[in-house]
């Protein structure tokens, strides 16, 4: 009898740990989604800039705002900078996608484990009640 109840206690502790892990995972996923959203917005903005830069004449003056000052930039330089930035952002987005997928897999397996634990606790409790 006492061994049974201690087993149940152990299981419950385990369950608690797992649920903590799960909620952590969920937080990570949510964070990831937010970062992802930010990057997508930036990607859209950069693409817009690139489009406008492409439409500019060769001799147009382009400035970049760095801190409080506007620094004059070469159009070609600005163009290549923006391209690089877009590349970086797309790579970052891919990476984020992979991590999100990974996290979601982990989350699912954790959920399964938790479900199993709950079932075990329940069956133990019912057998205890019978005894």
């Amino acid at each position, binding site marked *: 009898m006492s061994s049974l109840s201690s087993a149940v206690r152990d299981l419950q502790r385990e369950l608690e740990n797992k649920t903590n892990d799960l909620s952590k995972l969920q937080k990570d996923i949510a964070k990831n989604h937010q970062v992802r959203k930010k990057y997508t917005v*930036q990607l859209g903005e950069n693409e*817009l800039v690139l489009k*406008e830069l492409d439409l500019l004449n060769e001799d*147009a003056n382009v*400035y970049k*705002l760095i801190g409080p000052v506007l620094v004059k930039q070469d159009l070609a330089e600005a163009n290549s900078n923006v391209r690089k*930035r877009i590349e970086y952002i797309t790579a970052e987005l891919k990476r984020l996608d992979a991590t999100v997928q990974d996290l979601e897999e982990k989350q699912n397996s954790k959920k399964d484990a938790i479900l199993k634990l709950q079932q075990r606790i329940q069956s133990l409790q019912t057998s205890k009640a019978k005894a």
Partner: protein
Amino acid sequence: MEETRRGTVTSLASLFPVGEAQKAANRVQYAIAEKRAELDRLLGFIDDNNNLINLVHKLPEELSHDIMVPFGKAAFFPGRLIHTNEFLVLLGEGYYAERTSKQTTEILKRRGKGLDSQLDSLEAMIKDLQAEAMFFGQTIAEAAEGLVEIREDYIEDSHKGETKSGPLKQDAPDLEKAKPDDEYARMLSRMDELEKEELAAESGGDNGKNEQTTEDVDDISYQRPVDNEPRNSEDFHKGAPPVDQANNKSMATKSVEKHCHPDVADQLNFASLDLQSNVREGKNAAKKVKFVDHIEKPLVHHEEKQVKAATASKSEVQHQPSQPSFDSHKAFTGSIVEHTENIKTSNGQSSTSSQVSGSQPSKPVSRFKMQRR
């Protein structure tokens, strides 16, 4: 049997509890509200953009403008705008470009287009959500009223055979699985009974009918299918009728054959016609289950098929259980499923053709074609 055949009745409330539906509806409403807010924001942007375009357009009209320059939060001092055709336009990401008024307007217009497309997609989304919300609202109302969902599998046994398949199939799949042999035996006995009854009944009716047939050969073959359509559904409910008809037909065949002799004068000419019409009809009947009036003797072939089919039915019975399940997925429109039927009909037909007459086409003709004739 008949009862088991009729589908299931589920109250809508048990499928979609009112509370749950209400929750879902609330969620959708919330989503709509969110999208609306976004839409308002977007509309604000578009408005700003348009104002800006107007301003940029007007500024270069003068060489300079007298304005009040904001200084800090609350102070202004008088100043002058010069270089009214030079704009420093923020392209995004900290990049600025020096542009003239005209060029600036172009940039702004391109931005406006982007905003417009966003607006369109948002509106489409809101429309979708509203449709969803309407659906939930209706469901709630219906569930609250205690509406009931009645589901009845569409069983197309009718086509195959009036014969055995009718009643058998109609029993819900579970029933069939449980005791197919039993059912089958019952069916057979029932068919026997019916056959007897019909024999008695038909001897009277045949003569009149035969004459009619000859006259209306075309009409009949053409009309039958149409007439039968409504009946089809009825047949399903009754279950038994198909069997009767099959029997009737078999009897009819016999009687027809007899007839030929007495009315030789009238009928000799038509005999061939008759035969053909019979053939056609037989097919129609077989495929469609249209058990027209029992007295259709034309269906001679049919009967024979059916009887044979009955013997063959065992094998068919076995695969029948699976059919109802896919039947339910098919549209409830009565007659279009041809694959299964065709197979069966062809079986029946081959036997028929050999027996009845060489002239009949032995391959299965599409039901649609037959109807057209």
